[in-house]
């Protein structure tokens, strides 16, 4: 059994490698890979890379323009901006990965249940997905934040709640398409339990597109985190976040314009990197999902 499965898996792999090479030969995607790798390394090794503590206040040196001691300058409390930007990568990545992972797991489970379960349950779940999906996301997020108070936990909850429906819909559609295929029917005839069928046999075949969708949503989540933190409704100070750096810079945009420049740049680079990488990955992993990408 397993050797057959291995054989089946290895054939597309062999065909994929040339495409991986083709993908990396596209300069735009190669740059995107570099940006994302740089982002991950910065986030992972922040304490070693950052020259100062991101929360160390030094009021005597506040609003210093970029210099040899402070490459990006200092903010209104004299904190080193470069260190805050470096730690901001950590905040952004942590929130993006945790909330996308939570939403992915919820979406996967509910999608499998909706696709494989009884029809009445499917109906209820699809209605739930549809109503959550047709909410104006930002309005819903603001409402929840008013009630629960701003903070990292609320942020993750809001992002997970608003993004899981599209994942669930994707998994449901895939499950519906596969549930009557020969190998699943064979499993049913062998009296395999529904959890076994779902997790051992269906899941590996439906998860690919979900992973692509999740990776493409990471820049969106980074953007939402930064946006809400900019409004003062995301991560709480003094935790460094690109959004709150932008807000601090925005309040002193006339006296210290370098703050918004350096606060926004990593955000722009990260979202660009992830978006182009997502585009490349999608073309590479699943050419069928290709939508209007220039040849």
């Amino acid at each position, binding site marked *: 059994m397993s050797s057959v499965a291995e054989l089946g898996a290895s054939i597309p792999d062999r065909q994929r490698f040339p495409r991986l090479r083709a993908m990396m030969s596209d300069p735009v995607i190669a740059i995107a890979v570099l940006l994302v790798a740089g982002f991950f390394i910065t986030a992972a090794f922040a304490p070693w890379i950052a020259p100062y503590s991101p929360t160390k206040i030094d009021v005597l040196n506040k609003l210093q323009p970029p210099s040899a001691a402070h490459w990006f300058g200092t903010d209104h409390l004299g904190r080193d901006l470069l260190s805050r930007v470096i730690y901001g990568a950590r905040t952004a990545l942590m929130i993006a990965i945790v909330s996308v992972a939570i939403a992915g797991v919820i979406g996967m489970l509910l999608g499998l249940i909706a696709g494989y379960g009884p029809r009445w349950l499917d109906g209820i779940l699809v209605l739930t997905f549809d109503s959550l999906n047709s*909410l*104006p996301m930002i309005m819903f997020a603001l409402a929840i934040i008013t009630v629960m108070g701003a903070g990292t936990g609320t942020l993750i909850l809001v992002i997970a709640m608003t993004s899981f429906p599209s994942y669930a819909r994707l998994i449901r559609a895939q499950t519906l398409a596969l549930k009557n295929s020969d190998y699943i029917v064979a499993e049913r005839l062998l009296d395999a339990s529904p959890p076994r069928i779902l997790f051992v046999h269906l899941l590996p075949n439906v998860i690919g597109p979900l992973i692509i969708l999740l990776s493409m949503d990471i820049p969106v989540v980074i953007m939402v985190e*930064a946006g809400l933190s*900019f409004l003062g409704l995301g991560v709480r100070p003094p935790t460094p976040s690109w959004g709150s750096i932008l807000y601090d810079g925005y309040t002193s*945009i006339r006296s210290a314009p370098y703050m918004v420049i350096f606060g926004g740049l990593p955000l722009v680079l990260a979202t*660009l990197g992830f978006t182009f990488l997502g585009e490349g990955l999608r073309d590479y992993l699943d050419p069928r999902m290709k939508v209007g990408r*220039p040849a």
Partner: protein
Amino acid sequence: MLTYAVKRIGLGLLILVFVMVTMYAAVFLVPGDPATVALGPRATPELKRLLTERMGLDQPVWWQIIEFFRNALTGNLGYDVWSNRPVSTLVLEALPNTLILGTTALMTALILGVPLGCLAVVKRGTLADHLIGVLSVAVIAVPSFVVAIYSLLLFAVTLRWLPAIGAGEAGDIGSQVRALILPALAIALGWIGYISRMVRASMMEVMNEPHIRTARSFGLPEWKIVSKYALRIAIIPTISLVAVGLGGILSSAVFVEAVFSRPGIGKLITDAVNTRNYPVVMGTVLMMTAIYVSITIAADLLIARLDPRVRDVFRG
């Protein structure tokens, strides 16, 4: 078609109820009493009691929800906790600014995005096409509020060409237009990319159809084929995208209005969230959800009318 419309509207109403019930349930479930949070720890008990009463939080939750919807149906969305003004007035004052911003952004995006998409098709496979493709994705990826801040820094603070804050003087169209340019462009930029990409994608599918081949065999110039015969069909998916996307523009408007201190819905609600002004948040969210849901329904029905494939599905 009629059953479809009824179904969509029913789902829309359900969504509104769902949102409000979730919000009230969350108020109820979260520890700590909102009046204390709003007033701070040093408020006197009388003041707290007064505020709790004014927010209607002294009633049972289910009663609050029923009361809210009963009032909402008669146009009463509650009162601002701090200024005691009706929420419906606040919303109606702010709404025009947001709607003007949204439609201007969308029109700009269409005027620039559709020709760019056509250009990419005419020049397909060339450097220009590739460049438009890469730039489209890039502008979609960059957050609109960062575009807003950078354009504020460049055009309002450094070059001083355009005003940095507000929506312009009342009655002075010139200053209103000048105040509109930067925020509208910040929102439109991403949409230019999105629309040009969509136009290119749907047009590339159309380019292989027989009537295009016929037009080509008549020796018509490529740009004429694209703009006259291909665009007519390829524009349908774009229209639906734009209609559905109006809601997304509302989201960008929240951030962009905050950057430019433009007195619209986005600024109204973020200020209310920051001061924990429950009635204003609840009322505005209900109004905006209602607008968003109506736009989505209208868009779906429009697509159902325009696109025979969708229409036929719902005919039976």
